[in-house]
């Protein structure tokens, strides 16, 4: 997948993870890589950039095991940005599916379209 495009989607996912709870970096990376095939070197730069842009703030908190953890917290602007990005995403993916599924989305439909092409 195009790297630029993938970054945009991962950015949306990172924002979404933080909507209801603060998390530390490793936790975010773990949660997202359970669903998507991305690794740290995609997610961490996004966390860092969104923090720089004022969408997240960070704070340190002691953990029961080992060193203190850096938690990320979404800001008001971050949340507004998330809403906007989500709208864009919904519109975009909706349009994509409109195109892909216009002749039906089952495999037989797709095959039929190909066979009956003029």
């Amino acid at each position, binding site marked *: 997948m195009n790297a*630029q*495009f993938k*970054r*945009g989607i991962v*950015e949306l996912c990172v924002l979404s993870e933080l909507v209801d709870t603060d998390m*530390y*970096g*490793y936790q975010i*990376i773990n949660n997202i*890589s359970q669903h998507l095939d991305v*690794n*740290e*070197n*995609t997610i*961490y*730069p996004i966390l*860092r*950039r969104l923090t*720089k*842009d*004022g*969408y997240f703030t960070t704070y340190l908190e002691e953990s029961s*095991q*080992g*060193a203190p*953890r*850096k938690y990320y917290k979404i800001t*008001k*602007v971050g949340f*507004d*940005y998330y*809403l*906007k*990005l989500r709208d*864009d*995403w919904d*519109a*975009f993916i909706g349009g994509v599916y409109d195109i892909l599924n216009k002749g039906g989305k089952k495999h037989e439909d797709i095959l039929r379209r190909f066979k009956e092409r003029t």
Partner: protein
Amino acid sequence: MKTFLEDLRKELKKQNLNDVEIADIINDHEEMISQAMEEGLSEDQIVEKFGDPEQLAEELSKNASDDEGDETEISNDSSLIKTISKEGIDTVDFKLIHEAIDIQASSSDQFEVHGKNIALKYYNIFEKSGTLHIERKHTMDIKLRIMRDHGEIFILKIPKDNQLKLMDIKSKASDINIDHLKADSLEIKTVSGDLNITNSSIHDGQIKAISGDAQIKGSSFDSVIISNVSGDYRFKNTKIENSLTIGSVSGDFFAEDSEAKDVVYRAVSGDFEGREFYPKTLTLKSVSGDITINNKDKERPIEIKSKKTLSGDVNIN
């Protein structure tokens, strides 16, 4: 995992990141790698999870250069962006995020769009089949970046006495100021921006908001529908020919020196207060919010259609 961190440090140096930033990034990675080790991930698994230090460093330096690019493109001056002749324009459509919106009447005979702190390449401003569009470009398919609030303001000047069919504003956090607007319909959908409407004459008003506050002064409507979660609403010197319908959770509602025919107010904990407010009929429903109306003119009757509250007080004096 020493090698990963050392390689990363080397690569970051190569990308010319400054020492403070490098130390911070290395710190974050020490923390995350130690967490991965605590979880019992093997060295191979960790390498797979964290990927290639060279790529990571490249990605991080791209961030840094993106930021520098931004600042140069935004001018602080308020400037005229576009003028459009008023013929044929009956609708204005805003789709924005946090940019403030200022709508004014002007003595010019053209629509004028002015901007302050606006980086034009992020916006589409155009006229199409009678509609003036002012919108933030879709960002999903182009490069995703910025959007921090840089104090962007759009100022729309409408020829005075021009009657619009529709003023449609969709935004997330824009503060909106509307003065001397004449429109058949005004539709506003926002999350957290504040709203100010003054001296306007609107047939149908529809406002959907989550937490923004609103002030409506010296204006007239045929009907108004407001739905809102926690914002406060104040009406002053405003006349509503027919119905005013308000649904709120915890926002307060205050009307002073105003008129409406049929008022429906539904809220959970928001208070409703009227002073010199003379609706013909009132339907009130709240869970814990108080309802108070204080009017001087005792001759003007207010018909209470229904009045329900669980624990709030209802006082109509």
